[in-house]
């Protein structure tokens, strides 16, 4: 009898536990509504909106500050912040496009813009911008860049910031070796040689051989060859003989002036070893400036724009412009647009870019005092806005660009570094893929 009585008690407890568990697991959930193709509505301009940050974590604090300011200025709107790691944001968007759960507003970089826009997930913003206070206050080059990256001639994101290629070099090591500032490619190669002392574990340069290697290699190629356009008619210029020669010279640095482990270098490893070792030079963008300051202080290094050719010609490839997109499935587009306008306004845009060390899209923010103090940002802005630099626009508008420039060709570039394939073979193959993708894109957008 005892067994039965305690059994009943246990059964009742188990039932209660199961009920509590069921209520717990379903509590605080949402229905994840909003997939690609959902029309959405303009809404009342009040209520709750969701914002996905495409570089969550490192930029969380500044976004929360901007959201706090926005909610103070718009007490009827509440913004739910979702920080998504930059490495995962593409798959998160792709899953939500297929399964639902898209946000109202999201950070979308130019490199993934075409793919998302092609799935009809983003609302064209041309008309909204035309009647907005932001009209005329956004950098025209960045607006053109995101329009081009969207691939349909429409504005799918309001640009917020741009980065630029930077050559970071150790001023202390250059001074000791009596070297000139690496402002030209010739000086760069001379310095890479002179600063290398393998027996002392010192290297002149660290090359990016792992994730993200292609864009960096393209920057070095076009910078040296002086070719100013990515396309010559419908054919790409990547395998032009001048570019082939430039790439051969650049990959020649591997193991001669760089650590052998660089073949697997993504930006994390590259930055970490530059910050903690004795490597003369590093190519990266503005984003890592603050990490270098934290590790080395401001006295031991400088960040300058990428080198020019010997005659002073400066050619560089375009960096993806970051922006904010309004998702077409949003049920509160009016409130979402208000948030985008606020985030791209002078004060917020300046605050965000100061925190990231990037170049503001808002032209008023670009004149703020902090830019003069952050030397690499100041120099990069001067290069971009001076009109003296030739920018080779990378084809971010190709839906296959991400695949071609990453999964398909990063391993092939490693083969070039390791001597298993030549620069010409690599570039010919890359050119073939790009020409095919371009032809497909053109046929789809006739």
């Amino acid at each position, binding site marked *: 009898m005892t*067994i039965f009585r305690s059994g009943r008690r246990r059964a009742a407890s188990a039932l209660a536990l199961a009920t509590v568990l069921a209520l717990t697991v*379903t509590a605080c959930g949402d229905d994840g509504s909003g997939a690609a193709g959902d029309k959405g509505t303009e809404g009342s301009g009040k209520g709750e909106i969701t914002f996905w940050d495409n570089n969550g*974590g490192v930029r969380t604090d500044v976004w929360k500050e901007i959201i706090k300011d926005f909610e103070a200025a718009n007490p009827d709107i509440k913004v739910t912040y979702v920080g998504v790691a930059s490495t995962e944001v593409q798959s*998160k968007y792709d899953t939500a496009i297929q*399964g639902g759960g898209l946000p109202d507003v999201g950070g979308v970089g130019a490199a993934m813009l075409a793919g998302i826009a092609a799935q009809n997930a983003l609302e064209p913003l041309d008309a909204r911008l035309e009647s907005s206070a932001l009209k005329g206050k956004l950098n025209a080059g960045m607006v053109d860049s995101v329009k081009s990256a969207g691939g349909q001639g429409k504005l799918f994101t309001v640009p917020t910031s741009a980065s630029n290629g930077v050559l970071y070099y150790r001023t202390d090591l250059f001074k000791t070796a009596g070297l000139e500032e690496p402002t030209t490619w010739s000086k760069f190669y001379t310095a890479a040689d002179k600063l290398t002392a393998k027996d002392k574990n010192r290297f002149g340069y660290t090359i990016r051989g792992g994730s993200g290697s292609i864009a960096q290699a393209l920057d070095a190629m076009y910078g040296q060859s002086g070719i100013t356009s990515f396309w010559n008619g419908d054919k790409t210029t990547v395998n032009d003989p001048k570019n082939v020669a430039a790439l051969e010279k650049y990959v020649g640095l591997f193991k001669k002036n760089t650590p052998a482990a660089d073949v697997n270098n993504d930006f994390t490893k590259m930055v970490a070893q530059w910050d*903690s070792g004795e490597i003369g030079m590093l190519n990266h963008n503005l*984003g890592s400036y603050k990490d270098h300051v934290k590790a080395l202080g401001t006295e031991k290094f400088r960040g300058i724009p990428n080198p020019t050719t010997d005659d002073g010609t400066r050619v560089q490839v375009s960096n993806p412009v970051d922006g904010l997109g309004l998702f077409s499935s949003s049920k509160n587009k009016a409130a979402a647009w208000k948030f985008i306008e606020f985030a791209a306004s002078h004060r917020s845009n300046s605050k965000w870019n100061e925190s990231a060390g990037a170049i503001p899209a808002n032209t008023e923010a670009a004149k703020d005092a902090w830019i003069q103090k952050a030397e690499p940002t100041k120099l990069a802005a001067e290069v971009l806005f001076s009109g003296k630099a030739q920018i080779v626009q990378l084809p971010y508008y190709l839906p296959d660009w991400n695949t071609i420039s990453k999964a398909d060709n990063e391993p092939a570039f490693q083969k070039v570094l390791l001597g298993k394939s030549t620069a010409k073979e690599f570039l010919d193959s890359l050119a073939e893929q790009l020409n095919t993708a371009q032809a497909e894109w053109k046929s789809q957008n006739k």
Partner: protein
Amino acid sequence: MIAQDDTTTAPPAPATAAGADAAPPTRTPPAPRRKRRRAWDEAPRWQIYLPLGIYLLFTLIPFYWIVLFAVRPAGSTSLLPWPMTTAHFEKVWTERAFATFFQNSLLIGLATLVTTTVVALAGGYALARFDFRIKKGFMLALLCSQFVPGALLLVPLFQIFANLSMINSLGSVIIAETVFQLPLSMILISGFIKNVPYSLEEAAWVDGCSRFAAFRIVVLPLLRPGLVAVGSFAFVHSWNHFLFALMFLSSQEKQTIPVGLNTLMGADSVDLGALAAGGVIAALPVVIVFAFIQKWLVTGFSAGAVKG
């Protein structure tokens, strides 16, 4: 069964032509008992410890590196963890909300452990003790389900949870984790239960126990190593799992340690000290769990491997 002892009996004397003139057989002294020695018992110590030491070095250096980055101040290039700072831990724990992530991961891990163990126990018992028509097919289906990667089912799962209004709820991750771990757990548990003689349960029934009481009083205590193995496996797997938490949970208040760790690496910038501190926080519970249960875990897995 009588064991034959060949060391104490003398071999029979060979027959000779002399027959009765032959000397009486003498009992030869027993050969000394020789312990069968294995090859590694005879090997010099260094041949054992050197490879183990090298293996340990390779295993532990990455851990040392993580701890080093976690405790040394930003900008330090020292190879020793001195001077030491807790700044990175404080940063991730408070500023980067790892306290919340830790709590969520713990909740998901424990809930998955409980649900997986309970359901696997019931399912494993059925597989071990009952014969039913589709048993073989069912076992095969359980095995085959292991070939399906979670990423493949992401979109359908997302839609199911969305229909149940469970997106951004820890329950979605608990359910998904439990479902994905159940097949292997059930197969393991059924193996453990088969190892428990059926006669023990029958004896308990004769003494008046119901089937459930016999299971609880007689079988369950004997399954402890197996339960530890399955439970710890479920906990560690869900603690480390990244994909479901990334996709089904959106608000920061609901995110887990692996997702939080991922956000410490920005698109162009990474705080290595904070990342290392986050890594230590993520690894610590798993290390502690394994330190306490490793004896049962090894026993559990090897016991389950005897019969399946």
